[in-house]
């Protein structure tokens, strides 16, 4: 649904797309293995690695102790020694317990060694709220990693992207963090059966438009498309762009769009303050300053931890309504 390509559509859910990508990557390359908590016997608590143990055995589908630093280290050491690990960190919130391994070892080893290490490592994790899992199981922390030279970060918006970006991540010779979204796991889309790759660093224009640009990440791409539809009533023809890769960010595609539409907003599920939207907005206003008719807006979560209660969480996570409202607010600010 978010992709241009969709012929003889085989529609499968997001989670199956990720699973299929991993399976096919493992079939194609004996150096690919997956390790993480409950990825083998249980198939992953989100089902991402379902069936892999049966096909590839314990040597390549590895259940680990609850020891995230060691899990990431396992990937770093194995990658430095020439394998191509997929490391699963169950919830993105748990990156805190292995942060050093990710940002000081995995991200920097190549540079610190003067280019003499190669780290073809994919770190897969699940982000996002909406499941009433509260402050420690719902976060979107991608901004942390986008700030760290040496890492790449992708955030698929749908099943098509989930497979294609996973393939690109695993084939890349650098550490790539793949941030999937829990609420998206059931979303279906056309996903080709073959191993295809979505190039890292290339944004996708999900919905072309002429007089407003929304740059949205992950699940917010769909909310933004919905917002765009709502905004047609306001006479707006909104372009929605999915950067797909957050690091490196495809500045050109976004800036080009804004030069055309003259107005822009960035939407993500993460906390707004200090989110990756700040970087995107800063870049857009810098590169398209003369073309802007209004400030670049930002939609993100408010400045609070993710609350447990559904009554609060529903106000916490941005939706199409929030996005549409912000678009309208920005138009009011128009200079």
């Amino acid at each position: 649904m978010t992709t241009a390509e969709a012929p003889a559509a085989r529609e499968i859910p997001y989670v199956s797309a990720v699973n299929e990508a991993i399976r096919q990557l493992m079939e194609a390359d004996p150096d690919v293995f997956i390790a993480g908590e409950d990825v083998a016997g249980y198939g992953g608590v989100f089902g991402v690695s379902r069936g892999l143990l049966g096909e590839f055995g314990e040597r390549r589908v590895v259940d680990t102790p609850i020891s995230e630093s060691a899990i990431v280290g396992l990937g770093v050491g194995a990658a430095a020694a020439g394998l191509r690990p997929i490391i699963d960190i169950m919830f993105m919130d748990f990156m805190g317990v292995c942060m050093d391994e990710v940002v000081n070892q995995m991200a920097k080893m190549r540079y610190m060694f003067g280019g003499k290490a190669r780290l073809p490592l994919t770190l897969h994790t699940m982000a996002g709220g909406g499941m009433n899992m509260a402050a420690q199981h719902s976060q979107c922390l991608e901004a942390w990693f986008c700030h760290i030279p040496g890492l790449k970060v992708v955030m698929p918006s749908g099943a098509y992207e989930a497979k294609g970006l996973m393939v690109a991540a695993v084939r890349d010779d650098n550490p790539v963090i793949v941030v999937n979204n829990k609420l998206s796991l059931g979303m279906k889309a056309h996903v080709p059966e073959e191993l295809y790759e979505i190039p890292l660093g290339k944004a996708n224009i999900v919905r072309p438009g002429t007089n407003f640009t929304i740059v949205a990440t992950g699940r917010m791409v769909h909310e933004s498309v919905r917002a765009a539809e709502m905004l047609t009533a306001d006479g707006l023809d909104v372009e929605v762009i999915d950067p797909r890769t957050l690091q490196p960010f495809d500045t050109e595609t976004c800036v080009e769009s804004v030069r055309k539409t003259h107005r822009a907003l960035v939407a993500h599920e993460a906390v707004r303050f200090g989110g990756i939207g700040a970087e995107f907005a800063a870049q857009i206003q810098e590169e398209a300053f003369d073309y802007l008719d209004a400030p670049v807006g930002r939609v993100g979560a408010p400045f609070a931890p993710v609350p447990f209660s559904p009554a609060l969480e529903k106000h916490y996570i941005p939706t199409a309504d929030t996005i549409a409202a912000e678009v309208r607010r920005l138009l009011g600010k128009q200079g």
Partner: protein
Amino acid sequence: MADGRKGTYPVAETVAPVVAEYARRLPGCLTAPAAVDSIPWRRSDMDVNREVLLDLHYRMLRIRLFEEEAGKLSEAGRIPGALHLYVGEEAVAAGVMAHLTDADQLTSTHRGHGHLVAKGGDFKKMYAELFGRSTGYCKGKGGSMHIADVDLGMLGANGIVGGGPPIAIGAAFANKYRGTRNVTVCFFGDGASNEGTFHEAANMAALYRLPVVFVCENNGFGEFTPQAKHQAIRDVADRATSYGMPGLIVDGMDAVAVYESAGEAIERARRGEGPTLLEAKTYRFFDHVGVRGMGVSYRADEEVLEWRKRDPLLSFEQKLVETGVTDQGSINALRERVLFEINEAITFAQESPFPDESQLLEDVYAVSGGVR
């Protein structure tokens, strides 16, 4: 906030008022006669008298019924989010908590309801929290995985495996700093014993001789991974050697056994002799999340049934009756009474308001309301 001054310490003194308080509320429960010395499964010189036994039973019963009802509500889709239930492990919380005063603290895990119930948690505030209501312990902001009662010294369930140990030693440090005799108990699982945080906290606790007891609830699994697949040792207590602290193993299905071992460890901590690692071998009857504990892929039903034979509550009740500490009628009455309290609490919770959107940005900071 437990300020470290209001606690009383010797076991007997600790337990007596708790039981007296239960007794006040539940007169029926404390009538059956039994000679203290005739209790056949008494093991040590510790003062495991009739009041203690009834106390242990009461705590276990309250946990069991709280969890079973919570489980039903969750299965029925009436409680949002994920519940990690404590059914099967009640003896551990009961046996430990019977030694603690309100001024003593504990850190808990994702599987935290049992700990809070055993520490004296209020059913109303607990259910209200599970239901995400503003009358809950955390005003609906925490939910099951962050349920807490700082006034009771319950420093929170924790969504991060291994999140508790570092916090526990901090609380213990404060107790020592102030010269109180309060103790902090740190609950954690067999799976959590592989997190680096446990290692760091245990080392520091031993180094500073902090008044903390590390209670490993070894239920044989971390999520769906059996212990043999997450560590190459059988007894987590062996890890005590690494820190220069004593390690004890106890039958976590036997509340008296836990009571006795925990008592030793807690007394040792109160005496300023430092931490202990106490491993309780136990089992979770339900699934990692939710209720279904049988017919699952990662363990055999036979294994569950084998452990269920040693149900910490039911086997305890049987012994209580057999030894004349109480009778079945009293137990039944007590169960009804607790269920009544639970139903009241559930009603209270369900009738409570959800937090208002305006509360979203409150409680982020102590003074200001947060920034946008």
